């Protein structure tokens, strides 16, 4: 099994983080275009499922799956979206996404990052990268 790549978006659709592991084929798009496409697809999917919902309960989109890969979504209540592509048979991915969210939240709010009460600040890139890689590579679905 394999973990392919990871996107983290903020609530405005800005890609905060991207990383990849065993991605052998690129989309052929400029990275920024690809991020837009992924984020846009997720938004459309959300409005699509809301439109076709059969009752009023609060629902979330969890993943979509093809014969070649599975794209798992996690959206926090604050609007942070974490999207991970894995092997279609990978298990325990939701849990992994939650741990990535935890790492992101801690890094984004760490003291080193806080410019006295500034409203927005990008998380410390390289520190986040090393933490996320650590979490992903230790997961059972990796390799």
């Amino acid at each position: 099994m394999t973990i392919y790549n990871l996107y983290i978006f903020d609530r405005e659709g800005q890609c905060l983080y991207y990383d990849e592991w065993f991605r052998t084929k690129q989309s052929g798009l400029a990275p920024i275009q690809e991020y837009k496409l992924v984020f846009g697809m997720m938004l459309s999917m959300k409005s699509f499922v809301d439109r076709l919902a059969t009752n009023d309960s609060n629902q979330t989109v969890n993943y979509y799956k093809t014969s070649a890969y599975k794209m798992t979504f996690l959206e926090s209540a604050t609007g942070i979206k974490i999207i991970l592509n894995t092997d279609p048979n990978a298990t325990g991915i939701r849990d992994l996404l939650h741990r990535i969210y935890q790492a992101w939240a801690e890094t984004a709010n760490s003291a080193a990052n806080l410019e006295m009460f500034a409203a927005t600040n990008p998380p410390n890139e390289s520190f986040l990268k090393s933490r996320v890689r650590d979490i992903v590579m230790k997961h059972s679905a990796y390799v």
Partner: protein
Amino acid sequence: MSKAIKQNLADSKKMSAELFCLTYGAMVTEMLKDYEDPKDVTVQLDKMGFNMGTRLADDFLAKNANVPRCVDTRQIADVLCRNAIPCYLGVSATASSWSSGDREFVITLESNPLTELVQVPPNLVSAGLSYSQMIAGAIRGALEAVHFKVYASAADSGANTEIRIRFDQVLKDSLPAGEDD
């Protein structure tokens, strides 16, 4: 000061209540000197709390995976009193005085760590200083981060601190510009 607090929260370490209380008091005193009007100090404390709250929301959600998505104000009050306030202030809180069709309620902090060693001069209170407004601001900020717009104000009465919260509306996620083409 906030850096120290955030650092401690991020590392889930406890910080001395006295030190916290004294540094907060020193900061408010300094602000009272800087802004002549105590009302402005309240506004600033609220803003500082708001910015803390927007960040704490993510931290809180990351640490509490099993908190359900709130659908009404009673649930919001419940999560605030049972999870959020004990987690960040280390004190218990209760929600009461529901009014205007559950849109307004009061959260009572049984012992507010900010006011533990503090006596706020009555003339400043009557001039508009709300000493614990930072807590109210943080609640407002955190709820706004999860798409609930509320108004919050704090009032100290003896050892208790009352935070009055009025629910305004549920905010919608706006589509990013140029995303619909």
